[in-house]
């Protein structure tokens, strides 16, 4: 197994983030380009949080399934479409989506706690 040298993947993402936020964004006058740069920073932030959280940890279990199994999500989705949603599935779905949000946009959940 290859052991990579530093910077780690997370440290590389950090370095690019600092470069875009610190040097590129402030130098941009074109508002469309500036907006896209902020979007790119957001994308890097998502990738950073996902890696930092550890692979396989980001999609929470569907009922009766192993964590992160896409097949289980697919099966659950099909059951719901057929009208056979498991009872009390709603809190589980909320937790599944909340786990995605903790990576994609952690602050989004704040509005629901107020």
């Amino acid at each position, binding site marked *: 197994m290859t052991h990579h040298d530093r910077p780690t993947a997370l440290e590389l993402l950090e370095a690019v983030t600092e470069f875009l936020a610190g040097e590129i964004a402030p130098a941009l006058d074109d508002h469309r380009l500036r907006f896209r740069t902020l979007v790119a920073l957001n994308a890097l932030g998502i990738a950073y949080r996902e890696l930092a959280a550890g692979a396989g940890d980001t999609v929470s279990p569907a009922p009766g399934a192993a964590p992160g199994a896409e097949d289980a999500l697919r099966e659950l*989705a099909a059951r719901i479409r057929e009208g056979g949603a498991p009872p009390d599935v709603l809190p589980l*779905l909320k937790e599944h989506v909340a786990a995605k949000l903790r990576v994609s946009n952690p602050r989004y959940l704040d509005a629901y706690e107020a």
Partner: protein
Amino acid sequence: MIEEALRERLGPVTGLRQLAGGASKEAWALEAGGRKLLVRRAGVGVIHRDTLTLEQEFRVLEAAHAAGVKVPRPVEYLGELDGREAFAMEFVEGETIGRRIVRDPPARLPEQMADELALIHAIPAPDFLPGGDVVARFYDELDSVEEPHPAIEYGLAWVRERLPEGRERTFCHGDWRIGNLVVGPEGLRAVLDWEFAHVGDPVEDVAWPLVRAWRFGADARRLGGVGDVEPYLERYNERTGRDVGLDELLVWEVLGNVKWAIGCLTQSRRHLRGQDRSVEYAVLGRMAAEMEYELLHLIERAAA
């Protein structure tokens, strides 16, 4: 090149500049023949499913104008402009950026929105407008994403059991919300972006600006970040003779969240499938979870 093409159609052109805005359509501001115009042109490459061509959109704009709806006056369908379809309309001054509008919304905006929507729903529908079953269409679009989304499925199943049948179908704007309205200090000036016009249940439009994403952070004002829902709904009912209730509106608000979640997922596929590579489209795939959470929250609250 576009300047040359415009000169051929509209005569001498000055002050041509591209405006920020939609990714699927370009917008150009210019002056020609002593008038300020806005030229709307197709974006590069991609043709959306279920959106109108620019020629059809221009016909819809003409129909809206003829029906007395506040719209930029349609000027001319330009055909292909440097390889892509375009049309020209009057440029209406005012604010269109949602975040700025919700900072200090005009007091009369909610009732003006109700009045305008009542007029829109009375526009005689041109026969080229699509008009399929909305839930079936969302299932198709969700399947095209090829990724399991049980939360969206849950929303669709919940809506499917509750959508009232038998409401008459009318002309619908299809993207009726803050962000597609030109607003001045006195209120509503013009309704833009008619590319999603279709025939359907008018309550779809009534509820669309309630969707959290279209409140632009001003969550306390449930109508698009600009006002309360009740006066808007009451006024709409008064103007149309309909009897839309808050429960019915909630069903469409949940469906609105489903619609925007699926919209995010399908747009991210344009990047992932190489039709339109862009970091903006890419990140939308991760934004769908926000609408998923909101629709589960709405359903949970409705059951409580």
